[in-house]
């Protein structure tokens, strides 16, 4: 008599949290990509799209170049399955080359990783080979040019057959693309794991009722909701902010080597930072100032530096991934902060000279801007521009104040940055 209505109430009562859980799982579904490094994911998609057309190209070529091959004449295309299988094994070090065992994949990663690898990846190599008609794998390996290449490929000598097999593998790599990078696996695991637990708890609570005590169910649901909520809040607050963003760039350019070890001044490359709103991404010819002569890097050998020269040849500028980006509705002048504000680059960009891969250190939020405007003194006494603030100068003379913060003279006005 008494149980029925209670059960009924239970059911309707549990419906609401149940819906919430479902909603959150739904949100999570859409939400997950944020946990991965989106830049890579997207870029990979781009490259895959490009390789799709490559594959088409290759197929076309294979068909047109179907002429019977002779042993002596080198031709590309028409790789058998056998070639491919053997090529993959050779590359991954599963079978030895004729000249001895070499594990290509130990340096040239066939999949993406989030650790910095100075060596070109398998995909990079394959693309280089594909783009360049004259590129011969055997030639590059048997008589390597450059110190780095020579040291790393010592004692390697590959036969035309092996070359062919490697080429077969390269075409396969091109077809597959560079692959995606899975970042933040722990957070994703927590999110989905908790979601699953909550679902199970809900099912047991309402339908199966295997566990008599309801405390664990409720606890799981409460903890799950709180954690999911925390994720949602954290993610929405960071919406549009990319603190910690450090995407792979098209060239493995290291600020540590350039600005740190070689102590090149920031302004040497970012030439317009002192005169323009933007600090400027160095143009290709700026790179060539040095790399006209320096053709080989300590870490990356010739492979990365060659990309600069390739850009000159193709006329295609390098498409860097943008890291620091303020929203369009905020105005910011590098020149102003460097000249009038006398800020060091590192105060906003962090210890760039210690980074191999450039990373956004600050969150570039409005709160962060304002904190600086509130806490920092302007160059009040030395810059003649500020002479218009007569009263404040008098106050300094009288010893009432000893410095003037930016916020005191309009640094907090909306229209300083937004117009």
């Amino acid at each position, binding site marked *: 008599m008494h149980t029925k209505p209670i059960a009924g109430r239970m059911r309707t009562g549990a419906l609401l949290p149940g819906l919430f859980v479902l909603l959150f799982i739904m949100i999570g579904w859409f939400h997950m990509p944020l946990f991965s490094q989106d830049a890579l994911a997207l870029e990979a998609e781009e490259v895959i799209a490009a390789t799709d057309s490559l594959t088409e190209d290759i197929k076309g070529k294979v068909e047109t170049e179907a002429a019977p091959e002779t042993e002596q004449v080198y031709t590309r295309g028409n790789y058998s399955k056998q070639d491919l299988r053997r090529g993959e094994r050779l590359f991954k070090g599963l079978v030895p080359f004729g000249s001895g065992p070499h594990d290509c994949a130990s340096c040239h990663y066939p999949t993406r990783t989030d650790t910095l690898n100075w060596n070109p990846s398998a995909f990079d190599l394959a693309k280089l080979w594909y783009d360049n008609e004259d590129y011969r794998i055997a030639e590059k390996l048997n008589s390597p040019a450059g110190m780095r290449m020579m040291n790393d490929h010592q004692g390697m000598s590959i036969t035309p057959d092996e070359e062919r097999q490697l080429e077969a593998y390269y075409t396969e790599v091109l077809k597959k693309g560079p692959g995606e990078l899975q970042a933040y696996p722990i957070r994703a695991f927590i999110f989905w794991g908790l979601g699953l637990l909550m679902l199970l708890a809900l099912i047991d609570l309402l339908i199966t009722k295997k566990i008599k005590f309801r405390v664990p169910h409720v606890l799981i649901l409460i903890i799950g909701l709180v954690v999911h909520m925390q994720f949602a809040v954290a993610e929405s607050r960071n919406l549009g902010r990319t603190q910690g963003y450090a995407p792979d760039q098209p060239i493995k350019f290291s600020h540590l080597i350039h600005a740190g070890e070689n102590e090149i001044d920031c302004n040497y490359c970012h030439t317009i930072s002192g005169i323009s709103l933007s600090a400027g991404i160095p143009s290709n010819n700026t790179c060539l100032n040095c790399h006209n002569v320096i053709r080989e890097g300590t870490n990356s050998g010739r492979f990365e530096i060659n990309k600069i020269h390739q850009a000159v040849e193709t006329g295609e500028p390098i498409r860097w991934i943008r890291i620091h980006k303020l929203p369009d509705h905020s105005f910011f002048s590098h020149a102003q902060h460097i000249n009038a504000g006398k800020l060091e680059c590192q105060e906003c960009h962090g210890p760039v000279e210690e980074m191999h891969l450039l990373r956004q250190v600050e969150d570039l939020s409005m709160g962060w801007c304002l904190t600086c405007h509130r806490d920092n003194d302007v160059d009040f006494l030395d810059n003649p521009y500020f002479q218009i603030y007569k009263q404040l100068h008098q106050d300094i003379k009288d010893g009432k104040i000893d410095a003037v913060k930016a916020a005191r003279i309009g640094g907090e006005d*909306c229209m300083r940055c937004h117009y």
Partner: protein
Amino acid sequence: MEKKYWKSLNELQITEQQQADLHAEDGQDRSMVEILADEANNKSSSRRDFLKWCGISFVSATVLSACENPVKKAIPYLNQPETLVPGKASYYASTYLNGNEYCPVLVKSRDGRPIKIEGNTLSGITKGGTSARVQASVLSLYDTGARYKTALKNGEETEWAEVDTNIVEKLKEISDRGGRIALVTPTLLSPSSKALIEEFKSTFAGVEVIAWDAIPYHGLRKAHENLFGNAIIPDYRFDKAELIVGFGCDFLATWLSPVEFAGHYAERRRLSQEKPEMSRHIQFESMLSLTGASADERVPVKPTEELKILLALHDQVAALAGQAGIGAASVDYDVESLARQLMENQGKALVVSGSSQAEVQMLAAAINQMCGAYGTTIETTTPLMIGMAGDNAFDNLLNDMNQGNVDAVMFYHTNPVYHHAATEKVISGIEKTTLSISFASTKDETAKVCQYILPDHHYLESWGDAEFKSGHYSLLQPLIQPLFKTRQFQDTLLAWMGKDSDFHAYLKNRWQNNLMPLQSEFNEAEIFWIKSLQAGVLEIQPNRGQAMNFNPAALSEIAGKINNRIASAAELEFVIYPSLSLADGHDANNPWLQELPDPITSVCWDNFAAVSPATATSLGLAEGDLIRINEKTRVPVLIQPGVAAGCMSIALGYGRTHAGISADERGGNAFLLNTNRLFSGEVSNWEKVGGKHEFARTQTHFSMEGRAIVRESTLDKYQQDPAAGNELHKYHEKHKTTLYPAQEFEGHHWALMVDLNACTGCSTCVIACQSENNIPVIGKDQVRRRRIMHWMRIDRYYTGEAENPGVVFQPLMCQHCDHAPCENVCPVAATTHSQEGINQITYNRCVGTKYCINNCPYKVRRFNWYEFATKEEFNTHTTTDLGRMVLNPDVTVRERGVVEKCSFCVQRIQEAKLTAKNERRLLNDGEVKPACAQACPSNALVFGDLNDPESKVSKLIKDPRNYHLLEELHTLPSVGYLTKIRNPRT
């Protein structure tokens, strides 16, 4: 003060009838409650819909919040040009050249794309002034809809190389057999182009050049030839004239050199304690023009009556000068006293006539001669180079073409199918030629009927030069690579002549060889060229002018023609005039210009036949009636106070049929009425064609409500008391009380002063503001709904009787009140006061409650009802990637649902401040100029820092003429107005 001002006829009638209900002023009888109830009933959405949308938006917001940050690329130059700094604007000198219009400009270029036009202060002609059309010309560059994108043959795309071989072959063939090739151009101002065309003529023997102007000034030149034996258009100097008498001459808006004239005119009318004197201006005219609105005495008369008065004035002046008259009939105006005053002002008087008829101009020139104007108020040492083309040559060509005597015809910068009254004749003539070519860069009616369209560059993509006045040279240089596969006209000619060099080299060579010897500053050819390009202008001291031998005998021959003209007086006459915004309609497809309200009528997107209230009543016309005039032009009727009785005035430039989406079928083409090429004539026939037209106008929702918004006085009173007409200011200053502590501005305190005496109402500032601040175009329909977006508007007030009202213009922008009523009502603190006295609005904070709009007593705040910037139904120019290139990257493009308004061009203030800080120096007075002040041809707007006691604004704000709008509200605006002073005859 005692004057009663009114803004529309309705308002005048209402106040006269002492009606309290001003809501009915736009002609709607229904009450607001009825309108709202109707709207509610017609709405399909309900409360349930609202809840549904709430739910959906909640879910979509959550989903959207999970979206990824897009990957942005940062792509540097492969090889960065040394002079180009990304993110930093550079300015290049060039010249706006469009038919008769000329203006040396500086073009602001950001990241390689031109985004704003400013006046070139080095020019001795315009002195940094511009006009609305000049300001708007940058938008035409990106007009993807109307610009021809490649060479066309019979409407099909074709290759330039193919065109060249075909055409050269044909031209040779025609020349060889002695055929005729006509090249139709307007009066060419470019000396290099003229030289090149001469060379072209010698290459192809059959080529003859026929000049034809849509708006002709040849009559003026002819008059000087007849009267002085010297075919010139002299240089009129309004800055030296004490007494100006105008006859249907709109010299402040469109006549000859309006930018220069507005500057000169305003200079002579600017008052100060040191110079409490100004010129006197009397205007006889049929329409109510901008110039007439500024006049001290305005006499509205029909065109024939105007001529009669001019003739009578001539005879009176001749009598006083002891010369023979022509035989004038008596007129309804006291010409005798005017004649006496003209003679009293020997060497200081100036009579100008806007007529295109040589005989009429001879009358004006004779009067000028008799009152000693030549050599003083009219300079002959630097004559104007425009108006070289008479009508005869082109009329003959038309006849020859129709008889099949012309083999080929080419049109450069001319559009006779639209500009000529005999459209059919022009079309049939073109069709009878074997080869017809148009060099039009944007769609036009003539190009449409030509076989070949070989599009020219926009002027911002072209090389070129101009000589507007004798000795005043200026250069055009390209600001951007050609956007489309177009080719400069001159380069096409060079290609056809088989030359390898391009026009750039040709121009440079010509300047170095022909112009360098004329100056002494630079000796090295390369430096001379670079410096000339940098300055944009080269001014060479004029030689002494040729002798002007007055030959009064010539006057005796004109009596017949003048009397014929007077005798042609009809009951109803018309006058047609180049409109302020579109001039001859060349740039009609520019939506900025289309949406620029005519300062007098405040109508945009249309032209109309304006008739005076009395004439409308007698003809039985009501506002908005569609009529067809002389069986040719169909326009709506607008009842306009101040138009002469028995006269209709119709603006030119409208009624295009093949110009692009913004221009086509807007209004009627008044060029069709211009059969006599005199721009006036008889309305022999008019009929209502049925239907009512609803005008898009920006004015009727404002009313002065009996408050002293415009303050006006006369020179006499001003000389006795500089604060004349401004007594209220003193009163309000005395009664300032407030509960709040006074605002203090420690650093800068920005302020803008508007001299109502210098303002001519030319509306240049409106377009300059639109260009600088990314103000969207909203379209005719939205304007009809009173949703205007211009941050700056020109308010116009009438005073006096309806048939001949006085007119005052008042530029109105955000007043940046120190006690701003908008600021305290914003629930989200989106609008606040800066430490420099700027009333600032933060778009990202704004949630669109519009409380601020309600609370603003000046009605300067604008609301984005829709996505005006990106939706094609409102505008067509910023909806494409190419069109968006015109946007100023320093100014946010506003979203739907936010309020916007004048920011005092804060981006310019900040830029100047940052430069000063970076250069470690004080900010100089005059260094910051908002777009409106920079563009103003008459320097009516002065901007500066009130905290700097030496600044111009600090001095002007202490002028006894200064007052603030609605001072009684104690809003303490940062914008001040100087009273309007007129100088009527007593």
